[in-house]
């Protein structure tokens, strides 16, 4: 007995209370920008998305529709949905992806009474420790290498 294993090529970390559809879109976008999904790679169908992520098929449908509408996915006859050629994502856009995490960071910092300068210094320290450049690496349009 075999399950057909179509792997979802990105990971969704479900957080409670947030819009499901937004979380999946967000995870898909991150994966595309980080290079985990390249243009031409097949994107899971609505059915597979629904079954593998255990989400309502309507939600899965909304996700795919949105990604197609914003041009991140395109349908190729005979093959299905594939990742489209990605437009260059500016630094601002990519930073926006991390908006949620940054907001949480800021809130926690404020609660603990940490100043902006101390926060930036701490970020820099962590950046160094995990390797890679000091500055951001926007020129390639793909995500940096590095540990996740």
């Amino acid at each position: 007995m075999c399950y057909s294993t179509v792997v979802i090529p990105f990971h969704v970390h479900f957080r409670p209370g947030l819009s499901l559809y937004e979380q999946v879109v967000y995870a898909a976008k991150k994966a595309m920008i980080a290079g985990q999904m390249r243009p031409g790679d097949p994107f899971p169908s609505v059915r597979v998305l629904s079954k593998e992520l255990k989400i309502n098929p309507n939600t899965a449908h909304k996700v795919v529709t949105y990604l197609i509408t914003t041009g991140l996915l395109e349908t190729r006859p005979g093959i299905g949905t594939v990742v489209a050629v990605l437009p260059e994502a500016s630094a601002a856009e990519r930073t926006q992806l991390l908006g949620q995490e940054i907001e949480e960071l800021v809130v926690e910092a404020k609660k603990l009474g940490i100043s902006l300068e101390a926060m930036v210094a701490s970020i820099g320290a962590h950046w160094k420790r995990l390797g890679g450049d000091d500055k951001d690496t926007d020129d390639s349009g793909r995500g940096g290498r590095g540990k996740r």
Partner: protein
Amino acid sequence: MSTITMKPVTMSTVIRTDNLVKKFRRVDALNGLNLEVPQGAIYALVGPNGAGKTTAIKILMNIFGATSGRAEVLGMDSKQISGKALTSIGYVSENQQLPNWVRVDAFLAYLRPFYPSWDRELENQLVRQLALPLDRKLSDLSRGMRMKAALASALAYRPRLIVLDEPFSGLDPLVRDELIESMLERAEEATILISSHDLAEIENLASHVGYLDQGRLRFSEEMPALVERFREVEITFDAAPAVPGKLPASWMRLSSSAAVVQFIESQFDEQRTSAEIRNLLGEARSVTFTPMSLRSIFLAMAKSGRDAA
């Protein structure tokens, strides 16, 4: 506090109840239930034990009748549900007793002729997906395996309405996963009503959720809308604030200790809620709004229900 926000019905409703009341000898199980399940929905019916979920489902399935009120299923009065109507309804319940003496394959073969829409291919596929042992008697199966067999026997004829009453209870995570997958495969062609305590499982599945408590729906709405309006609020003050006696009705379970006030906002709107906080409690050092899982929402509802009772 009770909120019932009903989305306007644009598609046909598969299930509708009108002031459904059910009284048993000592218990009033349903006290005027007004439930609406739109076509194509995956409707999660949640609520504390004894809220009346199983009673409501049994009335919908015409297993027994209501004391008063009306229920409509697939456009038909629920009291007329029998014989032919049941060929398009699949029902699985943890407390239904299957004929234990029969083998799995004989059970499926026995049910086949009852359903004109029975799909042999789909049956085989379900048997494979759920790994059903065809040659074992139902009584020899584990609980999870029996539920899977029941589910297979309720999905193989492509019912338009699938009703599941506590299908996950007592089942291991793998079996739950398998059940959910089989359900989701049918979700595009069917409407699903699922009553469950396993909120983590259904949180991502459900398109609609209704909270039943003491025989009444305290809310019934689309999942995204529900998720949008509930927040855990934590406010840190410089000094302990004066908490006024009259607070907005949508604030639940308010507690204050030293300089921190916590409550649950059930009608969250960033601007309005922030303004209310400022007006009623004064300026704060920090205010955090944290979205809540379905489980947290349930607990908040249940505890506030208990407090109010």
